[in-house]
């Protein structure tokens, strides 16, 4: 088993490192997309500089996986990027395209490696989790504060999902600045926004009912970061407050559930079959 894990780890790291470097120092031509939707999404990511973040994550994750430095964390932060790579390569470029093979390989390698390090992730999937403060604090105030924060964040994500998919209650932000409009349009046209809001919806339900909360917070975090990034492009006070408010609340909640992320934050973790 360990040889299979090493094989996948070598394939994944060796792919991610040049793919990440290539954005900052040109090593080979960057695929721009052959279909209208894939090209539109690529241009929106590139023009908005969100692609810098994507490629930075690929590079950091690739180096982490190759050099054995925070491997579970590297794999976790790379998962949204791997998913987007697959989404761009497969549904957008075409299920039968050559790019689809590479996109699928990237996401499959990422998933397989996460499974190989499942020991590190398993605490995040505790059915019921207890925030750090509520176990030690004598006063009930922190406990109630954490509960309030969790409920607010859960309802927020859930309502956003319901608003988008089922019952329109408020208009989805389209953006005011050209880059914000371009990015939001590309996300809507490619239906990647559907995926993001679906994650918010599922994450919101889990956070609200208190099931798999650490995993749900981890799942929603990339969406919160992208929302904040979009708010920066949009330059609107309300967008900025909501975007950065989501990241702050998401981050603070992750901090109070820090005990459940200790496995992910191990500097040197062992994969299945390793001793």
């Amino acid at each position, binding site marked *: 088993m*360990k*040889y299979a*894990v*090493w*094989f996948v*780890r*070598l*394939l994944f*790291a*060796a*792919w991610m*490192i*040049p*793919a990440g470097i*290539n954005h900052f120092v040109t*090593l*080979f*031509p960057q695929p721009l997309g052959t279909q209208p939707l894939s090209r539109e999404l690529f241009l929106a990511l590139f023009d908005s500089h969100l692609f810098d973040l994507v490629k930075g994550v690929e590079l950091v994750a690739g180096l982490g996986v*190759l*050099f*054995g430095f925070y491997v579970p964390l590297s794999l976790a932060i790379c998962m949204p990027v791997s998913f987007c790579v697959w989404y761009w390569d497969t549904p957008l470029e075409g299920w039968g395209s050559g790019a689809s093979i590479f996109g699928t390989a990237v996401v499959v390698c990422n998933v397989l490696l996460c499974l190989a390090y499942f020991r590190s992730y398993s605490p995040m999937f505790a059915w019921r989790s207890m925030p750090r403060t509520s176990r030690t604090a004598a006063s009930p105030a922190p406990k109630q504060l954490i509960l309030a924060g969790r409920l607010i964040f859960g309802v927020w994500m859930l309502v956003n999902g319901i608003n988008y998919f089922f019952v329109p209650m408020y208009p989805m932000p389209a953006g005011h600045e050209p880059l914000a409009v371009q990015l939001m349009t590309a996300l809507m046209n490619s239906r990647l926004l559907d995926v993001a809001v679906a994650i918010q919806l599922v994450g919101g339900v889990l956070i609200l009912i208190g099931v798999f909360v650490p995993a749900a917070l981890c799942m929603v975090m990339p969406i919160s970061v992208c929302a904040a990034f979009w708010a920066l492009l949009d330059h609107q006070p309300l967008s900025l407050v909501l975007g950065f408010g989501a990241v702050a609340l998401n981050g603070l909640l992750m901090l109070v559930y820090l005990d459940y992320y200790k496995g992910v934050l191990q500097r*040197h973790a*062992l*994969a299945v079959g*390793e*001793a």
Partner: protein
Amino acid sequence: MNFDTLFVSPAGRTARAEFVGALVTLLAAFAFYYFLVPGRNSQWVQLVFLFPAVVLLARRLHDMGRTAWPLVVPAALIVAMAWLYLYVPGAEMKGMVRLAAIAVSAAFIVWGLIGKSQAEANRFGTRVG
């Protein structure tokens, strides 16, 4: 034995049995890209394998009581070959450098496969495995 001790940390020793398993894995990963993935990005990907390969061989040489410094020769040849293939594709010496890189690398691999481990502790650590 784990990935980090075999492919990441050059300090320490790797016994022949572990070396064989790790080498086969590394060569399989390299062959995957060499034979199945075309294009310039694949060539850069293949170059990334140089680091784990050097670490793996360095630890094997340590296990035989040898310094790892001679690995500079195959590493330099591989880097030179990569440079020629990526940036000077018309160079006449490309084939020669490639042949030299393969021959020297293969010689080190064979040395690692047949070389005897030192039974006792040496300056690189105690025997493992």
